[in-house]
């Protein structure tokens, strides 16, 4: 098979629509007679809800209805547990999910209390102020450590404490390894909360057609098929009556995977009132009502030999899940399973406690806990290198799993319920390439000393990571060659900017010999494709991509079989290309695929027993387990000692995600991930006060990095194909973001070496760096 498209930087099919402003986003949906919803959210983080008086709101002109928990009755059930915990021995998990509207108790500021439905959003928001909420404030559990105190306020009073879950996983015998170690490095690490802040907020539009008894829902979801399934179940409809469309989505990054209360309530209101209904989250609501991530405290230790060989790691951590835990244990298990990185760690003890707090719910956001593990491990290695007098590059190199170690079984359970087995990898060449690209020896040996002598504070960072990607269960694709010669590819995963309309077309194009721009990918519409789970865990290219490949292989076979009959030539003598199938060596003898598609739809009298119509195939792909991508990032930065502002001067990424489908799109994923990582490391922080109030709920206070904060990223790829799928690909969506905090901390420490800082917390900020330097000066 010629690969004319796979591996090429093909321009994106979806761009013209997006660039002209013609692409449909959820808030662009207009329906005749549409009503608008505003959500009343709790001002308190923790309170007894005594009553809601909405009578004045109901009387406001233009208000059609106001709903509270009382109006929902039995429908107001706890939401679904989206991911059950993996089968780990001795695992404790208390499932507590949010009701659609709060009933007797409020558990976080921003929890939905009531809905106003009105003729316009303006009127609906006016009416929110008419509603009187009678609530008795309770003491608040905000800090993840204090929430575990015996006398801490309990988020869920039916539980004996705020412990939501407890998990221990072990490999080997850490205690024995520690006892024979030459050096043990032990520290406490704190990684605080952030938010995904996709540029498009969430939104739902629902339209119930009472005559055809069909519900159509436009939803900013990363997982339209699970939303369809859940809606049908709770509304008592057949799945075939519900169509969920995730059109163009303005960024996902994880928090759009959930089944939020609004995703149920808006369709429910549309059915109840018999009118189309729209709810669009505003940015302030997004800071409270959309799930967040991060918030862990680690007590970790690394045991090594004098030569810097790792003997074992012990990590005990707390994970803040907020008021509920609808996404199970995915985030802390990712932390636990990513900490080991590319290293040979013979003994590992890892224990975590998930804690309920009176804060917004925590679920995966790009990296989904992986960056916490990488931060802990990379920081421990830096500290160990310092203590042993070893070079930081050398200590990493000494501990890499060698290429012959794969598949490598880490003997603990990963988020996909399978043992954590790395399928493939080749780490040392990536490290070599990065040190060469960033000019490590030259910088450390010459440039840095020279600049330091001039009084400048320049530092370098270099860290490694792996990313478990492309987990199951499965995805599918249906490919149809149409009589026009166009090829339709229908899939179940939604798209949020990853280039699905292009990369999946590339996979198909090579198999059936059609140009990429003749391939129309349809994704995120449950009417078009009925089975699947969604876009998350860096799995689109791996799982859906291989499903596309499998379907394309079958369509290719069908094309060859039919063309062989039509042209009276053996299949082996046929070739596909340029939208035609033709005789090898005699390209004029052939047939257009469109014409062949017409012949594949047989007329009367032409049907043989067993005939299936069409040049069409549906295939599924479910990997045995995830494929492990890896990489090394390096940066050079300078700190201004007056302002403590950081200027990143160089940033290098060498990444291995197996075979690359579209390097242009892959590099874009890296750039964006790095930018989010930089935001996480230095600019963005969700600050909660002692009452559980979020103090940074706007873009004036929660600082997303801008074009002047994010550096040019230099990228290179290494391709170690995954043996777990026919395309040999691994996921890449989250990799850019994962190691940045660890890298940033190392580079800042290096830049401020004169103060001998130890950075064991993220996010940093100019203020925090200033404090740390002042503390160091006082200590000295």
């Amino acid at each position, binding site marked *: 098979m010629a690969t004319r498209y796979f591996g090429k930087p093909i321009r994106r099919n979806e761009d013209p629509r997006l*660039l002209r402003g013609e692409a449909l986003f959820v808030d662009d949906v207009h329906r005749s007679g549409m009503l608008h919803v505003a959500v009343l959210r709790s001002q308190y983080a923790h309170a007894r809800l005594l009553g809601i008086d909405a009578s004045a709101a109901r009387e406001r002109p233009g208000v059609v209805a106001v709903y509270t928990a009382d109006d929902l009755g039995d429908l107001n059930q706890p939401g679904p547990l989206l991911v059950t915990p993996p089968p780990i021995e001795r695992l404790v998990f208390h499932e507590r999910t949010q009701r659609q509207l709060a009933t007797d108790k409020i558990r976080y500021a921003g929890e939905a209390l009531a809905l106003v439905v009105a003729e316009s959003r303006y009127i609906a928001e006016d009416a929110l102020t008419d509603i009187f909420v009678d609530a008795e404030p309770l003491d608040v559990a905000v800090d993840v450590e204090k929430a575990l105190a015996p006398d801490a306020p309990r988020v869920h009073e039916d539980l004996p404490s705020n412990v939501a879950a407890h998990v221990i996983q072990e490999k080997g015998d850490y205690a024995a390894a520690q006892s024979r170690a030459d050096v043990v490095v032990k520290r406490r690490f704190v990684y605080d909360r952030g938010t995904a802040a996709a*540029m498009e907020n969430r939104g739902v539009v629902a339209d119930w057609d009472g005559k055809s008894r069909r519900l159509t829902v436009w939803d900013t979801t990363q997982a339209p098929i699970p939303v369809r399934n859940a809606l049908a179940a709770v509304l008592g409809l057949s799945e075939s009556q519900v169509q969920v469309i995730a059109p163009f989505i303005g960024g996902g990054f994880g928090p759009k995977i959930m089944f939020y209360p609004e995703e149920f309530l808006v369709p429910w209101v549309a059915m109840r009132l018999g009118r189309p209904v729209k709810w669009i989250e505003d940015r302030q609501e997004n800071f409270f009502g959309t799930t967040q991530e991060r918030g862990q405290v680690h007590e970790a230790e690394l045991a090594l030999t004098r030569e810097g060989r790792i003997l074992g790691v012990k990590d005990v951590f707390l994970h803040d899940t907020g008021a509920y835990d609808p996404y199970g244990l995915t985030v802390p298990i990712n932390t636990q399973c990513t900490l080991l990185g590319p290293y040979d760690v013979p003994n590992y003890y890892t224990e975590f406690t998930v804690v309920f707090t009176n804060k917004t719910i925590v679920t995966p956001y790009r990296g989904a806990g992986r960056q916490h593990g990488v931060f802990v491990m990379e920081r421990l290695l830096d500290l160990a290198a310092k203590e042993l007098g070893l070079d930081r590059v050398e200590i990493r190199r000494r501990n890499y799993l060698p290429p012959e170690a794969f598949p490598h079984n880490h003997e603990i359970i990963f988020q996909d319920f399978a043992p954590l087995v790395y399928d493939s990898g080749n780490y040392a060449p990536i490290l070599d390439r990065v040190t060469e690209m960033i000019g490590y020896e030259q910088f450390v040996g010459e440039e840095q000393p020279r600049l330091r002598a001039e009084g400048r504070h320049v530092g370098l960072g270099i860290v490694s990571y792996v990313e478990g990607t492309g987990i199951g269960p499965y995805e599918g694709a249906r490919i149809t060659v149409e009589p026009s010669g166009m090829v339709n590819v229908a899939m179940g995963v939604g798209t949020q900017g990853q280039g699905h309309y292009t990369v999946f077309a590339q996979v198909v194009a090579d198999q059936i010999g059609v140009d990429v721009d003749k391939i129309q990918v349809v994704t995120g519409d449950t009417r078009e494709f009925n089975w699947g789970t969604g876009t998350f865990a860096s799995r689109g290219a791996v799982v859906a991509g291989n499903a596309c490949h499998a379907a394309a292989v079958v369509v290719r076979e069908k094309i060859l079989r039919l063309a062989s009959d039509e042209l009276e030539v053996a299949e082996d003598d046929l070739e596909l290309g340029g939208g035609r199938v033709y005789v090898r060596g005699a390209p004029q003898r052939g047939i257009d695929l469109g014409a062949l598609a017409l012949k594949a739809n047989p007329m009367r009298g032409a049907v043989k027993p067993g005939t299936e119509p069409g040049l069409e195939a549906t295939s599924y792909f479910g990997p045995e387990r995830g494929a492990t991508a890896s990489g090394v990032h390096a940066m050079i930065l300078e700190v201004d000692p007056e302002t403590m502002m950081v200027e990143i001067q160089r940033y290098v990424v060498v990444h291995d995600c197996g075979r690359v489908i579209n390097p242009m799109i892959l590099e874009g994923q890296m*750039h964006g991930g790095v930018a989010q990582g930089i935001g996480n490391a230095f600019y963005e922080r969700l600050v909660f006060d002692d009452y559980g109030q979020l103090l940074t709920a706007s873009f004036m206070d929660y600082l997303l990095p801008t074009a002047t904060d994010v550096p040019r990223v230099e990228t290179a790829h290494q391709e170690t194909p995954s043996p777990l799928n026919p395309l040999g690909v691994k996921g890449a969506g989250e990799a850019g973001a994962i190691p940045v905090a660890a890298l940033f901390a190392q580079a800042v420490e290096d830049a401020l070496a004169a103060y001998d800082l130890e950075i064991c917390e993220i996010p940093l900020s100019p203020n925090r760096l200033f404090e740390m330097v002042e503390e160091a000066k006082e200590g000295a």
Partner: protein
Amino acid sequence: MPESIAIRVTINGQPYERSVESRLLLSDFLRHTLELTGTHVGCEHGVCGACTVLLDGEAVRSCLMFAVQADGHALTTVEGLAPNGETLHPLQAAFREAHGLQCGFCTPGILMAMVPFLQQNPNPTEAEIRDALSANLCRCTGYQNIVEAVRLAAGRLTET
């Protein structure tokens, strides 16, 4: 119901006359009254820049203006950049070529901010482009390919 005020605006060369509430945001007027949904809304407090449109040729945040303030003025939205339907505006084409967009939600605002920027500064340096772009937030691209796209477009616009 609040009082309505009659306004006249020209958008992408086409005149519109509507009665609007005084409190109606220009962004909502464009998107929901006129269904010109190419202009996007990301924050409604003037930080993200997704709602940027041209008012008499100058970039403004349409979420920070009321529709009544646009009375008598000429607006250009992203739909007006390449009106003939077939070709893209050189800036749009450069964004596609340089992969300057991913989810595409912030893109209309960035295009509308960069059009007047390139008119005022036809040969910008990278630092100048980044400075101009810093008025718009993008969460997907890390800005690098947006910078490339603007540079590419600058070169082409000055050639023609």
